[in-house]
């Protein structure tokens, strides 16, 4: 009987394991192996070269530049996205009127594909016919060429990314806020807590599991951002929006340096893993599961 159910379990898991094995685990392992090889771009020949790819990578100023850009992009997307979505979710939770309508409105960008969203922002950021510069012009301000100016390109992409991601975060925060029992907020009110104290001493600690989950997902999403960068700036101008992932893409599919790109993928994996482990460590002290 036990053997039968075990067989059934493996049978049910098999399709998923097959897909995961073929499209996730095997490519990941292959990427790890390739990172120690020099791969000829137009033949199937590859040679073991040890840590040479990694040495090239860490000696490359372009790579360090992309690491710096990735860090700034991470800060410019994750922090505003979390703060803004949390503020909107708290406001919506406190004012149930039009909540469904507004929730749908904020969720709409999530439902749009990355390329569609990027095209929309290209129109908004257009230096001559764009809506943003039109508004600035009305206010008497000369708007820059947002996507071609090295000082503004990354910020412009970050704004578009936050706009796209915010709805996803709001939904999770709203669900988390709804799950906090009203009695706890009322008990705090009777204990003499002001609205700000209720937020910081009761609501946020109880929302911490959701906050933790959303922040982990946001960091991973930010580190893996590609579509909007590709369409809006293609990594330019002057590499000011070339993130680690975009650098990897260019090395792998434009320059055909498969071995080097694989080593970048491995380093990116270690960075994401490191960031996630750091978040989990922090969470041990600050996340309350009730």
């Amino acid at each position: 009987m036990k053997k039968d159910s075990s067989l059934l379990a493996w049978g049910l898991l098999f399709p998923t394991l097959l897909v995961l094995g073929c499209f996730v685990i095997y490519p990941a392992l292959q990427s790890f192996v390739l990172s120690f090889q020099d791969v000829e771009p137009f033949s199937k020949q590859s040679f073991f070269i040890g840590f040479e790819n990694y040495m090239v990578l860490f000696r490359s100023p372009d790579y360090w530049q992309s690491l710096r850009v990735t860090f700034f992009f991470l800060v410019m997307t994750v922090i505003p996205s979390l703060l803004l979505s949390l503020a909107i979710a708290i406001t919506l939770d406190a004012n149930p009127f039009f909540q469904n309508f507004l929730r749908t409105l904020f969720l709409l960008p999530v439902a749009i594909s990355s390329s569609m969203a990027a095209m929309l922002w290209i129109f908004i950021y257009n230096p001559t016919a764009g809506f943003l510069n039109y508004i600035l012009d009305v206010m008497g301000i000369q708007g820059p060429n947002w996507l071609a100016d090295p000082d503004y390109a990354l910020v412009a992409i970050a704004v578009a990314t936050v706009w796209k991601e915010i709805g996803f975060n709001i939904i999770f925060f709203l669900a988390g806020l709804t799950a906090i029992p009203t009695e706890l907020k009322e008990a705090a009110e009777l204990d003499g807590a002001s609205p700000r104290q209720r937020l910081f001493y009761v609501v946020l600690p109880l929302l911490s599991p959701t906050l933790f989950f959303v922040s982990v997902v946001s960091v991973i999403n930010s580190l893996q951002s590609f579509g909007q960068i590709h369409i809006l700036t293609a990594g330019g101008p002057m590499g000011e929006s070339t993130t680690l992932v975009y650098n990897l893409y260019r090395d792998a599919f434009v320059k055909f340096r498969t071995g080097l790109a694989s080593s970048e993928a491995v380093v990116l994996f270690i960075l994401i893993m490191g960031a996630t482990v750091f978040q989990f460590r922090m969470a041990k002290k600050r996340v309350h599961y009730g």
Partner: protein
Amino acid sequence: MANVEITKVRKCFGNVEVLHEISLSIQTGEFVVLVGPSGCGKSTLLRMVAGLDVPTSGTIAIDSEIVNSMPPKLRGVAMVFQNYALYPHMTVRQNLSFGLKLAKVDSLEIKKRVLESSEILGIQDHLDKKPGQLSGGQKQRVAMGRAMVRQPKVFLFDEPLSNLDAQLRVKMRTELSLLHRRVQATSIYVTHDQVEAMTLADRIAVMYQGKLEQVGKPLELYQNPKTKFVASFIGTPSMNFIEGEILTKLKPPKGSVCGGFRPESTFLSEEGAPAKLFLGKGRVVLVEPLGAMAYVHVSLAGQTVIIEAKSEVFPKNEDPVSVWIDPTKIFFFQDNGNRL
């Protein structure tokens, strides 16, 4: 400690009026229980005293000061919630001291009060645990402790024992009663359990459909109910009612009347009490033995009456029996539910 004066308080949610001009005066140190069936408005009234809801009209005064527009924290009230409402991310100690810290009470004083109340409630060994590590009874004690440490003018209890199992409920009820005797705090206690109301209250306010039916001492309500609802709600098992007409009174009331008599005023034999009135012959439909006594359900003229039988031998199902009542213990109610 303070008195609470509720004057002509109404509460409407949209077009629905859930409380109709409630007036109730609670003396300093008194333990008043608001009792009634679910949806009668007792919790709404309590929440308005707490400041969590605002009356549509009427006034609520605590310590002779009208508090209608005063925020909860300034009213000097503390509330114990039905589901305890303990902060799950804080330890018991932090739960107890949270309100005091917000009020910027001196840390030594906080320590002293937390220790005192935890000793009174027997939770001193659990101060560093989180609520998730406590049993239902311990959580309830912490919830009471949280109210106690603030030394409020008025304690408010919103069905605090209803989440506990039957045995623990009885234990906590006794503890609560002893605690009140010790602290002598003005308390308003909401419950739908009339046994809790009878055992805890100095006075009971019976509510029904958003109105106060009767306010009085527990035995007064039991022995002298003013309405049919109070007669039926107070007492377990409920009062027996038999519909009929009064034929011999000089000015008989219009419409039918209802005669009510309690199970302990009803007998299965003529022996024992001198002034018994023969009610009729019936058949036993159910016997609920409780040890020294039993509740015998008898089908009589198409209605079922419950009789408290004190005997060594109880009748069996389907046994024919004669039913007698004490005529001095019969209550008559009009069609509108008021007592004649």
